[in-house]
């Protein structure tokens, strides 16, 4: 589903070069739930941004769903992002003056679906996250957990094959966080690939596989993913050979 080989990302100013990622390789297969962990500044967000085609990379190779993204122009990357990737952000990133229906509608508009198809997908996915009755409500009228559910519905609506989640429970209390996590696990069980960046070792343990990043490099990696059910608290990582 996602493959990076010897990827590098260098931020350059006229004075210094910062290597955010170096010799970064990862292979995430279809249907996996991968947690990316690491300390602040380790490069995990840079990895997620590059994986989501929100940032360009400096060197190496990168495929999404078999598509080589090297040399793609901005429009091509936008279309690929819209079609293949769904984002779930720590801060939910809902548009405050659009109601839930219109928020979920945003990626579908750019996909070019007709009105009937958009309506079907929006209703189906808001139902899936348990918010069908609140379609005309605005984000400010919802709790944090509910807002994150809307963001998940938005990420699901376009049926992308890869979901990228950046600290999806970071702004939630433990009860809400558990609910969101259970929703992500359910989505994963239905066959969607999820890559989740998190600080939280408990959440990471619930993923099928952990990737640990330090100083822009993968330091800890379960190299041979054996698809397994989420371990619910048993998530020890395996050192990379």
């Amino acid at each position, binding site marked *: 589903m996602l493959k990076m080989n010897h990827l590098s990302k260098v931020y350059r100013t006229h004075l210094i070069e910062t290597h955010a990622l170096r010799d970064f390789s990862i292979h995430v297969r279809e249907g996996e739930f991968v947690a990316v962990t690491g300390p602040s500044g380790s490069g995990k*967000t840079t990895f997620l*941004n590059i994986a*989501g085609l*929100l*940032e360009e990379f400096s060197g190496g190779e990168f495929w999404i769903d078999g598509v080589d993204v090297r040399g793609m122009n*901005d*429009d091509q990357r*936008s*279309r690929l*992002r*819209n*079609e293949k990737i769904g*984002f779930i*952000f*720590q*801060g939910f*990133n809902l*548009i405050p*003056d*659009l109601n839930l229906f219109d928020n979920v509608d*945003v*990626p579908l*508009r*750019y*996909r070019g679906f007709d009105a009937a198809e958009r309506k079907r997908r929006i209703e189906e996915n808001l139902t899936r996250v348990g918010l069908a009755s609140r379609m005309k409500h605005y984000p400010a009228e919802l709790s944090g957990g509910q807002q994150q559910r809307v963001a998940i519905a*938005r990420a699901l609506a*376009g049926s992308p094959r890869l979901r990228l989640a*950046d600290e999806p429970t970071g702004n939630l209390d433990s009860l809400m966080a558990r609910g969101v996590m259970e929703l992500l696990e359910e989505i994963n069980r239905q066959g969607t690939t999820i890559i989740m960046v998190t600080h939280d070792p408990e959440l990471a343990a619930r993923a099928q596989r952990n990737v640990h990043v330090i100083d822009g490099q993968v330091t800890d990696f379960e190299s041979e993913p054996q698809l397994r059910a989420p371990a619910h608290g048993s998530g020890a990582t395996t050192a990379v050979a």
Partner: protein
Amino acid sequence: MFAYYLQLGLHSLKRNALLTALMVFGIALGIGTSMTSLTVFYLMGSDPIPWKSDKLHAVQLDNWSAEEPYRAPNEPPDQVTYLDATALMQASKADLQVAMFKVVWPVQPENPEIKPYSAMGRATYTDFFAMFEPPFKYGGPWDRAQDKENARVVVLSRDTNEKLFGGQDSTGKKVRLNEVDYTVVGVLDKWQQRVKYYDLTNGAFNDPEEYYVPFTTAIEFKTRASGNNSCWDSPKAGWEGYLASDCVWIQFWVQLNSPARVAEYKSFLDNYVNEQKKLGRFPRPLNNRLPDVNEWIVAQRVVPSDAKIQVGLSFAFLIVCLVNTVGLLLAKFMRKSGEIGLRRALGATRGQLFMQHLIEAGVIGISGGLIGLVLTWFGLMAVRGLYADLNNVAHLDWFMVLTAIALSVTAAVLAGLFPTWKACQITPATQLKT
């Protein structure tokens, strides 16, 4: 997607309401100011009779003094002498022709309840009505035979007919003008011209006349023109001396239905003047002119130069308003950088976002334009209040309404280009991590 962008644009008006209001009002103020001056400027200089303005020509004959031109550098007089007017009328070489002058006579109503009053009229020939096409409500013009017979006939304006006969069909009734009874042969309908082009010497923006009588009849009663009268040599004593003088006081217009006819008539005028030179008149070199309506309006400087300066200044003000709008739009779009980053993450291309924000700027422009039109309406009302002679030109027409909307949308889109471009340069990744 256009409908979606439009919907977002309308939605965005509500967001940052104060900022939006400032932008809309800024554009409205600029549009209101520029459109007020532009409307007056446009209507002053626009073609008053577009369907035949190229066929109507003012006749200018240079009978002025050998020592100096009528007006520098070498302009011929803008009116003609009685001698030349009658000669040209008798020659009748044009398709239609008219000699005319402004008169002011007392109107003495039969109805004792209406006090006598002084009213401006026009002594003219019957061709006046065919050439300048005032609309008739009742009756019609007098005929050529009545021109020759110095007939006591009159055509009334709608207002005069309203005043004297309560708006009823008054044809066949008598009107007493300057102690003489005239029979009403026609009553005009409303005839409000923006520019009174056929007699610019007596005020380009004057009201139309209140009555029209035959030129020959006015001459029989030794009526002097109440308008502009210029002489370069003192006339001989008495009425006959005045008629025989080189004083210019008569407007002379011809209708020539083709360019060939214009050339023929020009040649006729030159021959006429050359003949007159043999009689000792026309001491200056041949300098006859036949400007059509639009050339006449330009030559007579109907649009004053300060009107142009005013338009320039008001557009400079519009530019100031737009610069202000650029800043406000930039602030508005930068405050939306989180949403822009999000839309990029959800699959919007830069082009789509560019279009979305340009349409948003357009929505602000349309809103500003509509309010600007209301301000223009008030502005023109103020112009009419301050300058009574601009009553006929200080009005909005459909063309100017559409121009105002187009101008405001164009202005807002232009003002939106830089902020929109700037907004589309936002790196989505930096906006999404909160």
